[in-house]
C-alpha cells in the first residue's frame, strides 16, 4: 500500500484549468499520484477526467496551473514531451496500425525501429517478463483480440520507459476474466514502483484496484480519499453530489408469451463478413431479454437484422407467427417493432443532430399524414409532452438536439420509441455515457414498458446492470450465442466465461 514518504510525488497537478470555448472542462484541479500506487480517477461522463489526462500526456495544453513531475515543474507540449518525462497514456480507443505486428507497433516512432527483429523481440519479451504480460511479438494486430491489442498499447508505453501509466477506461472493452488479468499486471507495475492512474466510472473496479481515489465532478476535484476507508455508496455520493440508491427494480410478470422468435438466423455485416451466425432465441412479452458480449460480437447485426436494416442471409424471424425476413424497415416499424440503437457517437442513428426535437419526433411517422406536406403540429405536442414527462432539459423543442446533453438526447430517442407504442422494443446501449441519475430514469422507462407487456431487448455493456435489470440474458461471442441464462441463477463469472466462448469448453 501507499507508504507516506515525504518524497516528491510522481505527478502533481496544481490548479489545472482548461476551457473549451465557454465550457469550463477543468476548473482548478489538484491531483497527486505517488510512485508505487494506483490512483483511480472517478467521475461521471463530462466531469473532465479525460481532459485532465490529455493534458498530462501532452495532447492539450492547460490554460492555467502547473504540472510537477518528480517535484520539478514541467511543460508538456506534445506526446513526445510526455514520453520523455516517463508519462504514458493508454487511450480508450486504441491507436495501432492494423497491418503491423505487435513488435512493429511497439517500436514505431522510436530510434530502434531499424534493429534486428530478434533483438527487438528479446527486448519486448524482457519487458513482458518483468510485468507479467503475455504477447506474441510477431502477431499482426488485425488478428488480435481486444485484450491483446490493449497489451500492445501497454507495451508501447512501457517500451518507451514510462513509469507513470495512465489508462482511460481500460476495462470497458474487456470481459471480467480479461479485466482480472489486466489488474494483475497493474499490481505488478505498482509493486515495481510505478505510478498508475486509472480512469473509470465502474465503482467495483475502483474499490478493487486502487489505493486512493480522486473524485471529479463538473470539472472540479471534489475530494481524494483512501480506497480502504470507502464503500460504493460513499463514492457514488461524492461523484453525483447527493445520495443515490443503487438498486434496480425487476418487476416479475405472470404471463409471458413468445412474440418474436429467431430460427437459425445468420446475418452478414455490410462488408460481407459474418455478423451473427445461426441464432436461435425467443423474445417474450413482459420480459426484458439482456444481450451480453464483448463489444463487436454481433450485437449491432442482431439489432439491425430484426429491424430489417440488414437482411438475414438464411433463417427465419417469426413475429406473431409470421416471417418478417425480407420486409423493409418501414414495414417492420409499422408492425410495431421499434429499435433504438445508441452508437458510440450517440447521435449517429436514430436522431438527426441538426434538427430540433419536433422534427426528430417526425422521423418515423412523417409519412402517416395525407398529402405532400409535413404535419408538424402533433409532433410538437408530442415533443412538449416528452419534455414534461421525462424532465428533458432543453431551451426549446426547436433547439437542435446536438446542443443537448447526452442524457437528454437519449431520453428524446427512447421517449420517441416508447411513444410509438411498440410491441417489441429493441434498445442498444441506452445508458451509454449517461450519469447515474439519467441511467436510472432509463431503467425505469424500460421496466414500465415491460409492465405493459412489451417485449424488450436490452443490449448492454455493464454486466452488473444486465444481471439486475433483465429476466434472461443472451450471451454473444464472435456472432454466436454461447448461452441464454436466467439472470437470477447465473453469476457474473459464468457470463464472463460465455463471453469468451472458448473458455467455456476448456473450463466448464
Amino acid at each position, binding site marked *: 500500500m501507499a507508504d507516506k514518504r515525504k518524497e516528491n510525488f510522481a505527478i502533481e497537478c496544481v490548479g489545472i*484549468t*482548461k*476551457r*473549451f*470555448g*465557454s*465550457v469550463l472542462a477543468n476548473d482548478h484541479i489538484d491531483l497527486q499520484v505517488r510512485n508505487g500506487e494506483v490512483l483511480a480517477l472517478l467521475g461521471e461522463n463530462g466531469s473532465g477526467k479525460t481532459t485532465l489526462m490529455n493534458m498530462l500526456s501532452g495532447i492539450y*495544453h492547460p*490554460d*492555467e496551473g502547473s504540472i510537477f*513531475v518528480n517535484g*520539478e*515543474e*514541467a*511543460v508538456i*507540449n506534445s506526446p513526445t*514531451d510526455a*514520453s*520523455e*518525462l*516517463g508519462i504514458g497514456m493508454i487511450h480508450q480507443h486504441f491507436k495501432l496500425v492494423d497491418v503491423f505486428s505487435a513488435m512493429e507497433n511497439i517500436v514505431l516512432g*522510436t*530510434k*530502434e525501429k531499424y534493429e534486428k527483429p530478434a533483438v527487438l523481440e528479446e527486448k519486448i519479451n524482457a519487458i513482458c517478463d518483468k510485468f507479467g504480460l503475455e504477447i506474441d511479438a510477431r502477431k499482426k494486430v488485425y488478428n488480435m483480440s481486444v485484450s491483446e491489442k490493449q497489451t500492445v498499447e501497454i507495451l508501447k508505453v512501457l*517500451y*518507451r*520507459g514510462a513509469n507513470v501509466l495512465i489508462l482511460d477506461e481500460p476495462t470497458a472493452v474487456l470481459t471480467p476474466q480479461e479485466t482480472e488479468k489486466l489488474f494483475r499486471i497493474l499490481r505488478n507495475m505498482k509493486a515495481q514502483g510505478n505510478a498508475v492512474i486509472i480512469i473509470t466510472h465502474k465503482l467495483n473496479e475502483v474499490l478493487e484496484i486502487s489505493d486512493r481515489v480522486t473524485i471529479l465532478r463538473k470539472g472540479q476535484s471534489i475530494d481524494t480519499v483512501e480506497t480502504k476507508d470507502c464503500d460504493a455508496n460513499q463514492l457514488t455520493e461524492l461523484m453525483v453530489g447527493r445520495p443515490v440508491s443503487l438498486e434496480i427494480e425487476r418487476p416479475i410478470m405472470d404471463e409471458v408469451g413468445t412474440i418474436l422468435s429467431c430460427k437459425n438466423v445468420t446475418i452478414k455485416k455490410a462488408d460481407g463478413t459474418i455478423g451473427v451466425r445461426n441464432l436461435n432465441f425467443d423474445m417474450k412479452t413482459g420480459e426484458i431479454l439482456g444481450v451480453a458480449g464483448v463489444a463487436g460480437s454481433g450485437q449491432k447485426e442482431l439489432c439491425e437484422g430484426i*429491424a430489417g*436494416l440488414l437482411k438475414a442471409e438464411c433463417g427465419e424471424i417469426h413475429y406473431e407467427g409470421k416471417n418478417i425476413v425480407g420486409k*423493409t*424497415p*418501414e*414495414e*417492420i*416499424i409499422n408492425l410495431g417493432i421499434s*429499435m433504438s*440503437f445508441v452508437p458510440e457517437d450517440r447521435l*449517429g*442513428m*436514430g*436522431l*438527426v*443532430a*441538426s*434538427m430540433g426535437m419536433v*422534427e426528430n419526433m*417526425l*422521423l*418515423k411517422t*412523417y*409519412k402517416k399524414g395525407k398529402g*405532400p*406536406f*409535413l404535419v408538424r403540429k402533433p409532433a410538437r405536442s408530442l415533443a412538449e409532452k416528452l419534455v414534461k414527462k421525462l424532465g428533458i432539459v432543453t431551451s426549446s423543442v426547436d433547439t437542435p438536439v446536438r446542443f443537448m446533453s447526452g442524457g437528454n438526447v437519449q431520453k428524446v430517442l427512447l421517449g420517441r420509441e416508447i411513444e410509438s407504442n411498440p410491441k417489441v422494443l429493441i434498445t442498444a446501449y441506452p445508458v451509454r455515457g449517461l450519469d447515474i441519475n439519467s441511467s436510472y430514469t432509463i431503467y425505469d422507462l424500460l421496466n414500465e414498458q415491460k409492465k405493459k407487456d412489451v417485449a424488450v431487448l436490452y443490449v448492454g455493456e455493464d454486466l452488473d446492470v444486465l444481471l439486475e435489470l433483465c429476466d434472461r440474458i443472451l450471451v454473444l461471442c464472435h456472432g454466436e450465442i454461447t448461452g441464454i441464462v436466467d439472470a437470477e441463477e447465473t453469476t457474473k463469472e459464468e457470463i464472463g466465461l460465455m463471453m469468451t466462448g472458448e473458455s467455456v469448453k476448456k473450463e466448464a
Partner: protein
Amino acid sequence: MSVEMKRTKKSKEPLIRTVKRTELSGQKAVLLRIAALLAALVAGGIFILAIGYNPVLVYKTMISGAFRSKLAFQGTVKVLIPLLITSLGVTLAFKMKFWNIGAEGQLIMGAVFASYFALFHDTLPHWILMILMVLGGMLGGGLMGLLPAYFKSKFNTNETLFTLMLNYIALNFVVYLREGPWRDPNSPGYAKIARFSKNAQLDKVFGIHAGWIIAIVILIFVSIYLYVTKRGYEISVVGESQATAKYAGMNVKKIVLRTMFLSGGICGIAGMIEASGSAVTLTSGIAGGVGFTAIIVAWLGGLNPFYIFIVASLFSIMEKGSSVVESTFGLSGACADVLQGIILFFVLGCEFFVRYQFVTRKERGARA
C-alpha cells in the same frame, strides 16, 4: 531505450493557435461578414490605387453601372436569373450532401433539349412550344443529374468527379451539334447553330425576358419544397445521416435519385431560359461558368433560398458593375477579375473566422 535523456524543459506554447469557436450568434456572424466585405473593398481599393485609378470613383461606377439606367438594371437582372435558378438547383443536392459540381453540364443539356424543340418544332403554337421547351430543359438537365446519382447508388462512384466530368461531355456535345447535325446551312463562315425564330423566344415582361418570373416561381417552389414538404424533410435527413434515414424506413436510393433529377432539372430550366431568352440560339458558351459560380452562391447563402437570392443579387451587381467599369475606365477585363477575386477571397475567408478564432500565447486559452 530511447529515454536516456530525461528533461524537464521549460518551453513555451506556440505563439498563435487556432481555437474552435463556440457557435456565433446570428447577428455577430452577419457583422463579421459585413466587416469582411468592407475589408475586401479596402484591399481592392489599394489594388485600384496601385494601378493608378481612384478607388472611390471605380466603386461608385460599379454600383451605378448596375442600376444607373433602366437598361443597366435589366442587364443586372439578366445576369441574376440563370445564377439564381442554378444556385437553387444545386442547393437541393447540397442539402442532401450530394456534391453536384455538374450544374454547368446540366444547364447546357437543358439548353440542348430545349433547343431541339426551338429548332425543329417552331411551328407549334407559341405557348405549347414554350411549355415543351421548359419541360425539355428540365428533362435534359434532370437526366444529366440522374446519371451520376444512379451510378452513385448502384456502384458508389464518386459524384464529385462524375458530375464534374459530365460538364465537359455536355460542352463538347454542343460543339458536335454545332459542327455536325445542327449546323446552320445558311450561315456563311464558321459553323454555328441557327437563331431561334420569334416563336421560340421567351416573351418579354417589363422589358426583361420572362425568365425572371420562372426564377421567382422556382425560388418559391424550392423554399416550400425544402421546408414544408415530406420530400424536403427526407432530403435533410439523408443529408445528415444515411444510416438514420434507413433506420427511419426511408428508401435512400430513391430519394437520392429523385432529388438529383430535380436538382439537375432546375439547372436545365436555367439552360432553357438562357437559350431562349438571352442567347436566342445554342452556343458552347451558353453556361459561361454560371454552374460553378452557383456553387459559391449556394454555400455563401448557407443553402437557404432567401439568402441565396440576396447573395446571387450581389454577385450579379458585381458582375454587371465591373463590366461597366471595364468600359468606362478602359480597364482590362483581367483587372475586374482581380477585383472580384479579392472580394471573394475576403468573403470566403471570413467563413473561417465564423468557425474559428486565433488565440495568442498571452491570452492563454479560449475565453468566451
